[in-house]
């Protein structure tokens, strides 16, 4: 043993560095080789164009969302500095600010919670349904609903703000929320009362969920309290095609919600 240490001391340090680097290199090469099969899967004729189209549409969606956020910010500025009866303009802008907050058009921050959900890594027993070992939209909805019941004020999943019209569904082993394609790991961020984390972790329905999905199928769930949780604004359309204001609405509704 002593001889070994003495011998190791005689080895120049650059050789050790090189050995360590080669070790990492070997590891990366194996990892790279392991990652290849997923790319080799595109052997059928139809897949590559489908993947390319979906990727392109996702990029287009990101671009459109960025445009919506930028235009909303521009409109907010123009409205705040618009001409007219100044008392009325100020009052309308105050009301607009409140309405935007209520609608989810504004980035929020505050005390909150983050919950991360990932697919199970447990071996799937013979006869079991593999889908049960993946995070589904029901899992995400269960956690989101739990957080609302615990008093959350704003929630986003992987940066997608949950609004009154947000629906969630499964697509393959991933999910669609607000028409956006989300992949695991799913991070659910909620802003709410300071004790939101305690409320969630001590709730009977949450314990039931953990028992069923985490203990039952090995769905990986991590959760933590945040001093400064950030929930981004909703970057989507608000056009209404079927819904209109009531004719005698008490609000300053002068025109129905006209859809494009």
């Amino acid at each position: 043993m002593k001889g070994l240490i003495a011998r190791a001391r005689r080895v120049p340090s650059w050789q050790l560095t090189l050995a360590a680097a080669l070790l990492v290199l070997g590891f990366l090469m194996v990892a790279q080789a392991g990652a290849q099969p997923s790319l080799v899967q595109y052997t059928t004729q139809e897949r590559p164009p489908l993947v390319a189209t979906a990727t392109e549409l996702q990029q287009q969606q990101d671009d459109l969302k960025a445009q919506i956020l930028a235009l909303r910010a521009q409109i907010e500025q123009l409205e705040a500095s618009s001409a007219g009866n100044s008392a009325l303009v100020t009052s309308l802008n105050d009301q607009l600010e409140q309405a935007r907050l209520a609608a989810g058009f504004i980035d929020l921050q505050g005390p909150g919670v983050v919950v991360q959900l990932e697919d199970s890594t447990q071996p799937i027993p013979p006869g079991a349904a593999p889908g049960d070992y993946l995070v589904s939209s029901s899992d995400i909805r269960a956690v989101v609903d739990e957080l609302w019941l615990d008093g959350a004020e704003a929630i986003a999943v992987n940066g997608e703000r949950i609004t009154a019209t947000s629906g969630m569904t499964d697509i393959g082993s991933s999910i669609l929320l607000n028409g956006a394609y989300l992949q695991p790991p799913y991070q659910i961020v909620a802003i709410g009362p300071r004790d939101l984390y305690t409320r969630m972790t001590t709730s009977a329905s949450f314990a039931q969920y953990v028992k069923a999905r985490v203990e039952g199928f090995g769905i990986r769930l991590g959760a933590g309290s945040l001093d400064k949780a950030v929930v981004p604004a909703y970057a989507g359309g608000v056009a209404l095609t079927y819904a209109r204001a009531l004719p005698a609405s008490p609000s300053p509704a002068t025109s129905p919600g006209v859809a494009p």
Partner: protein
Amino acid sequence: MRSRRAQLTIAIVALLLGFLSIVQLRAQAGGVGLANLTSQDLTTLIANLNQRNGQLSAEVDTLRTQARDLQQARSLGVSAVGGLREDLASIRLWAGLDPVTGRGVTVDCTGPMSADAANDLINELRLAGAEALAIDGVRVVASTVVAGPPGALSVENVALGSSFQVSAIGNSINLTAALTRVGGIVSQLQVTSPNVQLAVSPENSLVLPATDRSLIPADARPRL
């Protein structure tokens, strides 16, 4: 001399290492999820993305017009109060702060329905494009969740009886089709809870109340 050769070797290895790390990271970040999708899922995804992008692009057009009108009013020194009022009304309507009317569907739910099933129903209606929702006269907003044991459900602290009605404003054909399709929520419930009945009927004119919630965050602040 030997140390220079050593340095050179290490430099080359480090270069390779860096290159491979980036390749590896790229491979993991790019389209792993898409690569896992079947052709059928990809087609569904493309249809969804197309539809959503169409809506987003229409919103961009609306907002551009709105911004241009505001700019014009400002450069002319004209009052923009009308535009501000319209904007306020449309945001309030969408957010659920004002009552709303329009055609759509009602879903009469009878029997010991579970809270999960009720929340699934709301989710299905949202996915099918419902623009406004209410449960027994309680307007559904983002944070509205049905809770409680079957037969004793409640929503926003309002108890729901053994039967209750969900109203949804939107395209009644799409909404009905989404609920009654093969494998949809109505047929699922027929199998899992035969005592629960859902009756979907189209309505020409529904009136949904405004939410009772303030929706103004108390714990959250605008991020500056």
